[in-house]
């Protein structure tokens, strides 16, 4: 009986903590493939503006577009393709025009030591090999299908993952023999995977788009415009992204 006030107090404190959070100063919703680079970008942009409470949220581009269309408050949306951004624009959830700020390329990643003996993309047609790629509905999967079509082959995939990051995780955990991810994902995972280039470098990826969300503060537009400037492009380039 004596413990009860303590427990009630603890619950109240937790509730107060949960309800007491205010709106962040700057919230960025970004495609999964931007997981490492987005915090570097917001850091660099906001450095001169002093301490800010910045929130990043990473998910599939279409999931993020849906959240914004359904009324989630945020400042900036970064998508890995045009289709998801177009949905947000059509729904009136964006102010101004979206800006292309980067492009990406695909590579093959294999676990250390390359247990499956993969040398090139056409090896992934082997049904005995365990292969993970992105689902055709998400940007990286669409690009993977194009890369395979360019080589006149079909990848014998054992899983079509809804996010490029889950493909990467499967290779890192050695659950599969090979996966196809963005060059930027491979670079972020350097050390835990080996990277093989696609024949001829593979097709150039869909553009990454940035836009200020409807109702965001004016600073959001400033950030979007800044993404195409030299300092931002230097950060993106270091992470493996290509110029827009």
């Amino acid at each position, binding site marked *: 009986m004596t413990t009860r006030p303590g427990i009630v107090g603890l619950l109240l404190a937790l509730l107060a903590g949960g309800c007491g959070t205010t709106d962040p100063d700057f919230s960025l919703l970004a495609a999964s493939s931007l997981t490492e680079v987005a915090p570097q970008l917001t850091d660099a942009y906001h450095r001169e503006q002093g301490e800010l409470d910045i929130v990043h949220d990473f998910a*599939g581009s*279409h*999931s993020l*577009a*849906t959240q914004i269309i359904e009324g989630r408050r945020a400042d900036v949306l970064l998508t890995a393709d045009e*289709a*998801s951004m177009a*949905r947000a624009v059509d729904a009136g959830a964006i102010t101004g025009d979206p800006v292309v700020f980067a492009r990406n390329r695909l590579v093959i990643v294999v*676990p250390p030591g390359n*247990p499956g003996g993969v040398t090139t993309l056409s090896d992934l047609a082997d049904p005995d090999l*365990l292969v*993970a790629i992105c*689902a*055709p*509905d*998400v940007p990286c999967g669409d690009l993977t299908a194009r890369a395979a079509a360019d080589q006149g082959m079909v990848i014998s*995939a*054992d*899983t*079509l*993952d*809804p*996010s490029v990051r*889950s493909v990467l995780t499967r290779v890192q*955990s*050695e*659950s*599969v*023999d090979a996966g196809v991810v963005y060059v930027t994902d491979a670079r972020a995972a350097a050390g835990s995977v080996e990277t093989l280039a696609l024949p001829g470098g593979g097709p150039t990826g869909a553009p990454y788009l940035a836009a200020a969300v409807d109702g965001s503060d004016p600073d959001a537009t400033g950030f979007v415009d800044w993404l195409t400037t030299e300092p931002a492009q230097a950060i993106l380039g270091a992470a493996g992204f290509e110029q827009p």
Partner: protein
Amino acid sequence: MRPPTRTPRLLAVPAVLGVTLLTLPIVALLWRMPWSSVIDLWAEPETVDALRISLVVSLTSAALSVLLGLPLAWFLGRMPHRWSRVVRAVVLLPMVLPPVVAGTALLFALSPRRGLLGPALDGIGITLPFTTAGAVLAATVVALPFFVITAESALHPDADGLEDAATTLGASPATVLRRITLPRARPAIAAGAALAWARALGEFGATLTFAGNVPGRTRTLPLAIFEDLEGGRFESALAVSLIMLAVSLSVLVSLREKWLLR
């Protein structure tokens, strides 16, 4: 005539709130449903494939849950208390574990490349990850606990001494099980099987992690819905959700009439 039972009126407030909380999302789902194109979206080959995989996986998983769970539930009521406490906790663990963790753990156990048992199984020609059998396994890990806890209480040694009486009168343990214990537990067994089936049908995280997502092989309805949402195909996601609602509602209602209300 029975005297009218008196319930404290105030209880109605949280009760109504509870029902609202559970029905509001479903109502909203139906409100946004693209009714005019629902039939066309259902006829998509991908949707038909996913429905077929879902039915195969969830029904097999429910059958496996009964097959493994019934003896387990029976023993739970008959082993020494200190042991049953441990076994029960282990059995219930997958209910609290996020399904993606269960799927990852299954992969650690059975991956043909690096799993605990996977390479040995692979050596004798059994590969489970990224197969339909793997999807069944993933669904069973999360569904089995639901069957066991539902069936367990009904399989407890009886307090009224009916089982003891039968034994005293010369019935063998098998006869007691067949003639008294099981018939009496029938509604709970049916309810447990229905719960396990429903849980297996809705399974998502463990399936995606362990069995992957390949059309016609491991892509179940929940995986198809998630992929539709990630691909921005909103209307298809809603239409497929409607199939899940309709299938589960009709099965659960018919089960209730046939089995649960005797």
